[in-house]
């Protein structure tokens, strides 16, 4: 296994609030890794630091053997890392198609872009039906699909997903996680951040538990599911 991403002692500070107090983790190529934690644990801050959206106050981020700790976010995105932000980051007044096209502007493999676009529409038929609709008019589940489809259209090989299940009905959540599994099987590496611990642990290969800006536990997702402490704190005790 080759490490595609390695984070060392990552610290993020907002004014006086220390959101991350030096966390370290890694992701192997082709894995689904999940970080689970309660509100305010620092999950989004982790993703924001990794994708260059906020500057870490200390620590190191390596992506594909390059130090990207202080690289601007659009450059990181062009190196194959796509961050699907919390709340999905819809360009609400633009159409579904425009949302997807925008993701391809930094790519140079134009013939592959066409193929990817076709694949994405095949994979998400509901987006294909709604090509010319404003993204803001889509349902929550469809918006999450679009956000993931858009990340795929950037040509990224690594996706950071911030709470894809947020605000969605259980059935739609299942659908979204099936999509995540599928794109992982197609070769994408995934870092998934979730409050929905059970579903996340069932989907991921490995997991980290984040609490108040520090990593409490880590291990194989299947082990953590049966860990009594994790059960009590994150899986509602059963």
């Amino acid at each position, binding site marked *: 296994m080759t490490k595609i991403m390695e984070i060392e002692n990552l610290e993020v500070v907002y004014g006086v609030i220390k959101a991350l107090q030096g966390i370290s983790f890694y992701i192997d190529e082709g894995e689904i890794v999940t970080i689970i934690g309660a509100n305010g644990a620092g999950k989004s801050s982790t993703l924001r630091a990794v994708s260059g*959206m906020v500057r870490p106050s200390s620590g190191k981020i390596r992506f594909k053997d390059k130090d990207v700790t202080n690289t*601007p976010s659009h450059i990181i995105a062009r190196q194959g890392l796509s961050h699907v932000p919390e709340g999905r980051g819809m*360009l609400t007044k633009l159409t579904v198609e425009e949302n997807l096209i925008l*993701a391809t*502007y930094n790519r140079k493999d134009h013939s592959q872009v066409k193929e990817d676009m076709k694949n994405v529409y095949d994979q998400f038929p509901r987006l294909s039906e709604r090509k010319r609709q404003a993204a803001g008019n889509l349902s929550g589940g469809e918006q999450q699909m679009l956000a993931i489809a858009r990340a795929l259209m950037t040509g990224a090989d690594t996706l950071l997903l911030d709470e894809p299940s947020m605000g969605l009905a259980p059935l739609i959540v299942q659908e979204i996680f099936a999509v995540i599994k599928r794109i992982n099987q197609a070769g994408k590496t995934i870092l998934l951040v979730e409050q929905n611990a059970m579903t996340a642990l069932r989907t991921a290969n490995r997991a980290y538990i984040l609490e108040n800006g520090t990593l409490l536990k880590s291990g194989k997702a299947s082990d953590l599911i049966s860990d009594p402490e994790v059960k009590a704190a994150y899986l509602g005790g059963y």
Partner: protein
Amino acid sequence: MLKMKQLTQPRVIIFILSLIVLCTLPWVVSSFILRIATGIMMWIGLALSWNMLGGYMGYISFGHGASFGVGAYITGLLMMLLHLPFFVALIISGVITYIFAMIVGYPTLRLSGSYFAIGTWAFAEMMRQLVLVLDTTGGPEGLRLPPMLNDNFFYFVMFGLALLVFLTAYFFFENSDFGLKVKAVREEEVAARTLGLNTTWIKNQVFALSSMFAGIIGGAFAYWITYIHPDSVLGPLIADQMVIMVLLGGIGTLFGPVIGAIVLYVGNQYMLAAWGQSSAYLIILGLAICLVILFLPEGLLSLPRVFKSTTKGAFARLFSPPRKTRI
């Protein structure tokens, strides 16, 4: 490349016909009307330039008048001090306002929303104060340019500039990859960056481009009016009017600024003729903003659509029980 098929589209034919009509205007209307038409052209250009920044990109600037004033003063100074020909001076002021906007944009574009509005307003005010105390600009005395009395000349200059800004808006903002990127910045800057767009670069370019057009138009205005003064070209009312014209016509659209500029400028001139220089215009202006924001957030351009849906709505309400008030 323009193809023959595109050239025969109805809207293209209408566009070309209106251009021909507008080109013959100096020979069919009185010189009074021609001066009004020149003013309309100027404000169409200004409103369209503001709309690039405020409409397509969503950065509401209250300092756009500074670019207009800087362009006016640079053109004036180049003509008076260096005796440059008008068009040379105009092009140089375009370049200088572009660079000036790059510098001003660097700090202000880090702000957004109302902070950006306040930041740009403060910059504009700073420029006015600066010009007021500088000797080269004539301070509060203002600056006189070589007189040039040719109504037709200025009509065609303003017409040409308005057309230039219009075509830029059409080709670079309405129908291009760049325009889509600009709209992405407006919708959700963070998301745009996650898609690999260099939003900082995009924002700087749009700010500089729209300022450059305002600067060039300011230069043409200075030569037209031959006497400029810090209050006449750097006053806050210039930016305010651009904002209101765009909001009135329809923000983020191609024709909204055109319609807003025509309505507001004609209204202003009419009031000037009827009541002379009075503050009534400002009061009506304020009222107009309130009404448009409250009842017509998408501007006059959306009037036909709004009218259709409200008349339908009125019929529906006529035959349905009264609704409970929503809290």
